């Protein structure tokens, strides 16, 4: 196994003595992830601020008596223009379509009279709002107008009609919502994390393995440097394992850097969105859970490295290898994504042995504290078994002169 050790040493050396590789493999992804989340957060905050600061342009036609006072008291801030019933609204509607005007509110003729003289079963007077749902300003202006102005106005008219509005409420539901939520905060956080994390972990590990594996195997074949290694007294198996282990180490490292970058940047993203309110987002692991997560991830890395390496060894050129690996990546992404949509329903135990999918649901279970030893064992066993079959196939490919020398 000395040969294997030497190959691992050389492969690590190859990466860590090359500044460009260090930057492209480890530094750039981390900077990009942090930068991306920071940027998304900033953009979202900026968008929200922009909408909040925008002064809406609102037209109100045929407003009932006293309505102007209601608007004034409500605190609804907008540039409001009142119109009488005879004025043409076509241009205003065009403005709404083009995004230059935000809202048009039209009251029925004789609105107040109709409200006051309402008899059961009669026609209910209508207030029409015209807005553009595809324009953020217009949608927000309408929402604010409904809640701040029309809602209050309606209540006021109802009070005039009935006196005490409580008469209209037969019973309340959850008058104190805090008491009715019986929830384990940690599990709830785990559930949120469980929908996203398996997908990200899967994807990060695979992308690391992909970029490195193709160069370390197809690249070496293309450059003719692999043959020089095949001429040493090492058994092919030792060369293959040396390559796979070094790739696993590098991919894990690359994934770890991604993960750290995400852990650093997600709270920043949430902070931007919620204005500093992050209560309830507390994800913590027990030592056993940490070891389990690490074992699942390491076995997954080894599987991915084996998948990529098999494709890389069968390919004649790096370009060909990339075309082999891309569809595999889509399959892996899909398997990771399944956990986003399937929830935590009861699953058959044997499904945990399905490579990739099994790891994804195991990570999901682990985050809510429901990963049993049997599930964990099946996940690791299934992943390693498939990885070993792939390793055997790679060794076979290394022994094939057709594959290695195109002979």
């Amino acid at each position, binding site marked *: 196994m000395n040969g294997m050790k*030497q190959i691992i040493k050389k492969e690590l050396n190859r990466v860590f003595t090359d500044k460009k590789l260090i930057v492209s493999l480890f530094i750039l992804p981390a900077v990009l992830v942090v930068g991306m989340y920071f940027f998304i957060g900033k953009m979202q905050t900026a968008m929200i601020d922009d909408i909040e600061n925008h002064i809406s342009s609102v037209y109100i036609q045929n407003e009932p008596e006293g309505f102007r006072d209601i608007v004034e008291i409500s605190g609804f801030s907008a540039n409001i223009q009142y119109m009488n019933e005879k004025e043409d609204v076509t241009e205003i509607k065009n403005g709404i379509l083009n995004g230059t005007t935000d809202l048009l509110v039209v009251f029925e003729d004789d609105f107040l009279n109709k409200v006051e003289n309402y008899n059961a079963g009669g026609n209910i007077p209508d207030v029409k709002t015209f807005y553009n749902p595809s324009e953020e300003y217009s949608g927000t202006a309408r929402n604010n107008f409904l809640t701040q102005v029309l809602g209050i106005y309606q209540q006021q008219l109802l009070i005039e009609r009935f006196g005490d509005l409580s008469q209209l409420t037969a019973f309340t539901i959850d008058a104190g919502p805090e008491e009715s939520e019986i929830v384990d905060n940690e599990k709830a956080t785990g559930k949120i994390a469980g929908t996203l994390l398996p997908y990200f972990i899967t994807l990060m590990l695979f992308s690391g393995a992909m970029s490195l594996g193709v160069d370390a195997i197809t690249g070496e074949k293309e450059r003719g440097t692999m043959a*020089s290694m095949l001429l040493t007294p090492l058994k092919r198996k030792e060369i293959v394992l040396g390559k796979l282990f070094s790739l696993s180490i590098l991919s894990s490292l690359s994934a770890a850097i991604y993960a750290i970058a995400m852990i650093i940047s997600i709270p920043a993203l949430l902070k931007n969105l919620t204005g500093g309110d992050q209560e309830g987002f507390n994800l913590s692991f027990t030592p056993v859970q940490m070891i389990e997560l690490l074992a699942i991830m390491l076995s997954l890395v080894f599987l991915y490295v084996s998948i990529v390496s098999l494709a890389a060894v069968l390919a004649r050129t790096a370009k060909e290898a990339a075309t082999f690996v891309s569809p595999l990546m889509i399959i892996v992404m899909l398997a990771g994504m399944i956990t986003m949509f399937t929830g935590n329903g009861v699953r058959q135990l044997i499904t945990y042995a399905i490579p990739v999918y099994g790891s994804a649901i195991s990570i999901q279970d682990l985050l809510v504290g429901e990963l049993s030893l049997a599930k964990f064992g099946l996940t690791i066993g299934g992943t390693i078994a498939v990885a070993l079959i792939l390793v055997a196939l790679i060794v076979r490919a290394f022994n094939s002169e057709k594959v*290695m*020398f195109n002979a």
Partner: protein
Amino acid sequence: MIEIKNLTKVYKLSKKQMQERKTKNNFKKAADSVSLSANKGELYGLLGPNGAGKTTILRCVATLLQPTEGEITVCGFDTVKEPENVRKSIAFLTNEIKLDPQFSPKFMFHFFGKLHGMDDSTINKRREMLFGYFGINDFQDKKINELSTGMKQKASIAVSLVHDPEVIIFDEPTNGLDIVTARSVTDYLKKMKEEGKLVIVSTHIMSEAEKLCDRIGIIISGQKVAEGTLPELLTQTGTNDLEDAFFELYKEHNVEEA
């Protein structure tokens, strides 16, 4: 030292390769019942045109390819049954086998020494000796992709000899080298022979074969058509120099593929 018995190597051709070669045969016989033996202290040359099968024969000896028929032993080890032992006793150098361009000659020398199971002090002694002989010391820490063709070839030769092998197989070792570098390589091969090693070279350069080789095997269309010392080959063909002898044999044996 090296014993080749009835070596036949057949390549299967893909449809694309058949089209490229304009042939209807889905196979190509790159070596056809080749037998030869070479011994310690000998410099044996395989002479033949490009594509004659010289590299295929040498690759079979180096265990990179397996014979379709026949058998090869190197220092008593069968190339199919004990390939690791064969690789321990040979150095194999060809144009298509290269050193990792990202590393320095010094790193590569140490790396391959380790893969051959050598300890650090032996590797260092061998390095001082070989790097000194080929004048590699000046650029031993430079990355291989920064070196000139001649420097790269010198580094490749030194690295291939790290484990002081009994058998040295060089496929067209002076290809692409300037006259000075080429001379230092051929001089070293002679030195190896004098030290009792078996050196096998393949070449299509007549003058090189004439000056260098004790015995020459002429390969045409995958077959060994003649073998012997230079005077023997000249007598056999009734010619005055190797080039004329080669063309006599070429006219006689070259068969165009159907």
